[in-house]
C-alpha cells in the first residue's frame, strides 16, 4: 500500500492523512527499493529517524518492527538495524554439502578483516594478478566461549568492492553475496583429517595432539567457472562433525 503516492507530494515527507508509522514504513521501503539504503548496511538510528521526520521514537520503532517482520530489515542488538536484500531462491548455504553439526548455542567472532595483495597462491586460485587486492577474513566459531572451528576466508576485492561497508560481523559472506546479486553457481569442497600446525591448534583452544583436526576447504565459483571465494575451515574433531545428504543421480 503506497499511502501518499497520489498526493503529489514527495514520498519522503510525512502528512497527517494516514497513520504516521505506516508512512515511515513506506519511506524506508522506498529507500531500500531505490538503493539509497543498500543491503548489508545499517539504516539511520531510531533517534536520527525521529529527528529527521519530527516524529516520536515509539512510532519509528513500530515502522521498523513492521519491516523486520516482513523480512526486509534485521535488527541486531547493540549494532543497529540492517537492510536485507531479496533472498535468492536457493541459498548458497544449500549448495554446501558438508553441514556442520554444531552445539545448539554458538556464536561467530570476526578476528581480522584486511585487504592484502593476492600474492602467488591466490593469484593462481582466483586467476588474478599477484598485486591485485583481496580481502582476508579470519573468524572463529565459539560455543560457551570455547572455540570449535576457525575459518580463513579470501575474496578478491573486485568481486565485492562494497564489502568494507557491509558489516560482515552481522552478515555472513553468503548473505553479502546474495545482497549484491553475486551468484555462486557451484561449490567444490573437500574434507580431510590433518595434523594441524601449532598455530591452528593454539587458536582452537590448545587442542591436545591426540585430538585430530578436520580441514574443510571450499571454493565458490561463479557461472564462468571463476573462483570468487576460497575458504579453509579448521575444525576440532571432538566438538564438531559433518552431515551430508546423498541423492541418487
Amino acid at each position, binding site marked *: 500500500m503506497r499511502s501518499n503516492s497520489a498526493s503529489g507530494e514527495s514520498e519522503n515527507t510525512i502528512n497527517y492523512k494516514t497513520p504516521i508509522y505506516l508512512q515511515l514504513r513506506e519511506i524506508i521501503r522506498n529507500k531500500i527499493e531505490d538503493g539509497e539504503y543498500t543491503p548489508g548496511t545499517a539504516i539511520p538510528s531510531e533517534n536520527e529517524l525521529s529527528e529527521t521526520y519530527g516524529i516520536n521514537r515509539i512510532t519509528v520503532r513500530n515502522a521498523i518492527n513492521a519491516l523486520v517482520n516482513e523480512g526486509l530489515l534485521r535488527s541486531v542488538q547493540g549494532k543497529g538495524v540492517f537492510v536485507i536484500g531479496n533472498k535468492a531462491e*536457493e541459498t548458497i548455504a544449500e*549448495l*554446501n*554439502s*558438508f553441514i556442520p*553439526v554444531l552445539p545448539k548455542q554458538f556464536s561467530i567472532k570476526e578476528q581480522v578483516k*584486511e*585487504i*592484502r*595483495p593476492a*600474492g*602467488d*597462491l*591466490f*593469484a*593462481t586460485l582466483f586467476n588474478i594478478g599477484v*598485486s591485485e*587486492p583481496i580481502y*582476508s577474513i579470519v573468524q572463529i566459531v565459539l560455543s560457551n566461549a570455547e572455540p570449535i572451528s576457525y575459518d580463513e576466508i579470501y575474496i578478491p576485492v573486485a568481486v565485492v568492492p562494497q564489502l568494507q561497508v557491509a558489516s560482515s560481523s552481522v552478515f555472513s559472506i553468503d548473505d553479502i553475496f546474495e545482497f549484491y546479486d553475486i*551468484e*555462486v*553457481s*557451484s*561449490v*567444490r*569442497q*573437500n*574434507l*580431510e*583429517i*590433518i*595434523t*594441524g*600446525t601449532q598455530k591452528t591448534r593454539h587458536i582452537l583452544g590448545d587442542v591436545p595432539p*591426540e585430538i*585430530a583436526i*578436520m*580441514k574443510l576447504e571450499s571454493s565458490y565459483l561463479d557461472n564462468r567457472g571463476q573462483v570468487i571465494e576460497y575458504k579453509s575451515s579448521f575444525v576440532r*574433531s571432538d566438538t564438531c*562433525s*559433518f*552431515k*551430508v*545428504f*546423498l*541423492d*541418487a*543421480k
Partner: protein
Amino acid sequence: MENKSLMENKTSPRTNAVEKLENYLLVNHLPANSKIPSERDLCKLWNVNRTTLRFAVDMLIDSGKLYRKKGAGTFVAEAKLPRNLLGVNSFASEMRQQGTALTTKILSFRTLECTKQISKKLHVTLGNKIYEIIRLRHVQGQPCIIETTYINAETFPNFENYNLEKDSMYSIFTNIYKKKIIRGEENISVTYATKEEAAFLEIEPDSPVFFATGVTMSSENEPLEYYKLLFRADRFKFVSVTHRRED
C-alpha cells in the same frame, strides 16, 4: 602508489613463504613422492631466509602436502583418494569410474538379533533377524576401509548365498531383490583406530580415521542398510561438487 605499499605490509614473510611454496606445488603439478628442490635453492629462488623457509616446509608437512625423509630431502605427499559425495553410488562402481583398483575381503558375516540401536536405524523390531557384514576394502593394494553393513534379513532373505567379494552389494540389492537405493544421509566424524582395526588397516593403533555412518533409503522410504565406515585418513578425503539447480 601509497595504497599498494600499505597492502604489502600486511603479509608477513612467513605467510608469504607458505603461500609461495603451496603455489609452487599447485602450478608445477609435481607427482607424488617426487623430491622438491633443496631448502637452499628455494631460499635463493624466493629470496627468503632459511628459518622462514623451514617454517613454510613444516607448515605444509603438518597439512599433509609434503613429507620429509631423514637425510634424503622433502617430498610431495601422495594425493588422497576422493570419497565422492555426489550421490548414493556403490563404492565399488565409484572406484571403477575413477579407474581405481579395488578388492574386497569379507572379515565376518553373521546373523544377529536386532539391537536397540540398529532397530532405530533400520526400523526393524527388536530381536528380529538382521545380517551383519564386515568387509575390508583394499584400494590399489593397500587396506583402506573397514565397512560394516547391517541389513534386515526379512527384506534380503538368504543374503549369504551371494558373493560379496565379487559383486557389489548395491547391484545385488537392485538385481536380485529389486530394491533400489535412492537417497541417504551420512554423518562424518573422526574416531581413533582400535588395535584390531589398526591391524587390518596397517596403521598405528589410535591413529585418527574418518568414521562415516549412514542409512540409505529405497524409493518406498524404507531403510535398506545401515553402515559404518572407517577410512584411513592418510589415504582418503571426502569430496563434493554441487551446482545451483537450473530453473
